[in-house]
Structures are given as C-alpha cells and as structure tokens.
C-alpha cells in the first residue's frame, strides 16, 4: 500500500527492500517491484512492515 501524507510517501506491507541510495529506492510489494527515484531521498521511518520516505520524489514506477 502506498500513500502520501504531509509530503511523505508511506509504503506499508512491503515485502523486501531491494536497493537504497539518495536517488533511488526499490521495493518488492505484492510480488511486484516498486521503484522510487528522486533527489535527497531519506528514510524518515523504517520498520519491518512500513517505510516512510521524504525528499524530492520525481518518479514512482511499479514494474
């Protein structure tokens, strides 16, 4: 589940975090791949079932 709240991107019930850097984040959700790209991407909150991301998000792709 992906939602936006107060300029933050909330990703819930993700399966796996695949890659992570300042410009790109890749997740596995519902056996699909979620790719988030942008600038200065930071993890605001991280737990086993939820990630909150902040930064300048330019693109969200579901592959």
């Amino acid at each position: 589940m992906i939602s936006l709240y107060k300029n933050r991107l909330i990703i819930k019930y993700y399966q796996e975090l695949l890659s992570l850097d300042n410009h790109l984040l890749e997740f596995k959700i519902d056996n699909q791949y979620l790719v988030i790209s942008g600038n200065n991407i930071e993890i605001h909150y991280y737990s086993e079932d939820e990630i909150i991301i902040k930064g300048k998000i330019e693109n969200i792709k579901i592959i």
Partner: protein
Amino acid sequence: MNLGYDEIIIETTDLLSFLKQANKYHLQIFHLKQIKVNTYCFYVPIYQRYKTIGLKLKINKSIGILHYLLLLFKSNQLFFTISFIITLTIIPNYLYQTKVKGPIPKINKELKTIIKPISKKLTYKQINNLYDKIKNNYPIDYLNLYMQGSTLHIEYTKAIKNKKTSLKYQDYVARRDGIIAKIDVLSGNVLVKRNQYVTKGEVLISHEIIDTSGNSKIIPTKGIIEAYTYQSIEASSEIDDFAYLLFKIRSQLPKDVKINKEKVISYDIIKGKYVLKMDYVFIENIAIREEL
C-alpha cells in the same frame, strides 16, 4: 508514543544488509540520514534498547524524557533519586510537630506532647477520638484540631464556668433614708418611683404581685435602687489644719458610694479643739435584701 530515542551512528558499506538485519530484530528506525560516505545516523526508540544492544550498535547519545528518567536510576544518582522519592511520597504522610494555640501555658505544654514526634498522619476517626480525649481531660470550651502539611494544629479557648444563679424571693428594703435617683430592677415588683423619698426599712422591691382578680403571686426579686443619701461627717484636731481635717473626713467616706455633693458646714473651735463638719450627698445603692 515514543518518549525517548537513542541516536546511533553506524559505518557500513552495505546499508541494505544492515536494514535487513534490523528487520529481523524488528527494530524501528527513525530519521535515517547519510552524514558521511559510508556513515549513517538514525534514531531508535529507547524502549527498543535491548534490541539495539542485541545488534551491537553503539549509542551515540540519547534524547527524550525516558532518557532523563533512566538517568535518575544510574548508580551515582541513586541516592538523590531515593531522597527525592522519599521526600515526595513518604515524608508528607507523617506528622513532625504539634502547634498549640491557647491561653493556658500548662495545657499548651501537655498538648504539645499528646502525639509522638514522628507519627503517621491521623485519620478523621483518629482526629475525632483525639478531639474527645482533649475535650474530656482539659477545661476547654472551644477546640479545633486540624492538620496542615506535617503539622498538627490544636487551637482552644479556656472554659468559662457559668455562675449558677439561684432565684431569691426576699423583698428589697432601704438600708437608709434617701431620695430615689435610679431604678434598675431585673425582677420583682417595684414599689417606689424616681425622686420619691424613702425611709430606712421601707420595702423597695416586693416579691409579691397581685393580679386583677386579687390573687397574689410570688416572684423572684433582683435589682439595684440608687438613691441620694445625706450624711454629715465631722472630724476634730488639736491643731489648726483644715486640710488635715478634710483629709481625715474624706478617708472615712464609704467606698461603695459616689459623691454627688460635698459642702463644708462649719469649722469651729469647740472645747479647745478644731472641729470641721461636712455635709455629703451620696448616690448609692440602698436596696438590700430583707433578712428572713
């Protein structure tokens, strides 16, 4: 709600692996930031500290109220913490002194020691019992007991014994001649009027009243009747000293009278002595109970 956080700085070339490991431990991570190349900073809730320790992460610093509360229980501050807890919880439950406010020093001294110096605060029942105990053992009229902080306050006033009045039924009669000046009668049948001349032995206040049907009733009597009384006093001396004679006369005057008038009647030499004669008008209570 998180009440405190531990700040953790890690150096890793593989952040992803670290995050996966944190996931295994169910660790929550807040504000993950890269501060240098391969150096990351993040916050972990204090209540997850055992997981932080399990992951062998080094705590850089801690923030939040929980952190300060935990600091209280560190060994070097334990004494102050215990003192604080004692001050806050145990000490207010005890009474340390008794303050007594009353007019009798002897009772004050005894009441000060009525409660042991350090004793538990009294319940309402105990205060009531203490109230009864003090009331029964001491001559006290008004008593107030209350606790303020760790002090027991006892306030009292001395008992005033009321005089028992017994009713008397004798008549009041004049003890000397005079003209009535003032009538102040609480009870009884007044038989005289103001400016009336009365003679010694005359009934002033009677215990008997007669109603319209001619039946007599006995009533108690009490009162004062003041009258102008007239008295001549003389004094003699072998030396011619008027002032001395005047002093001699004045020293003979009765004490329970008011002098209304004082007049020199004569100052003569009689049989070789100097004689001063004075007339006095007194205002005095002439009503006395008739003896049975």
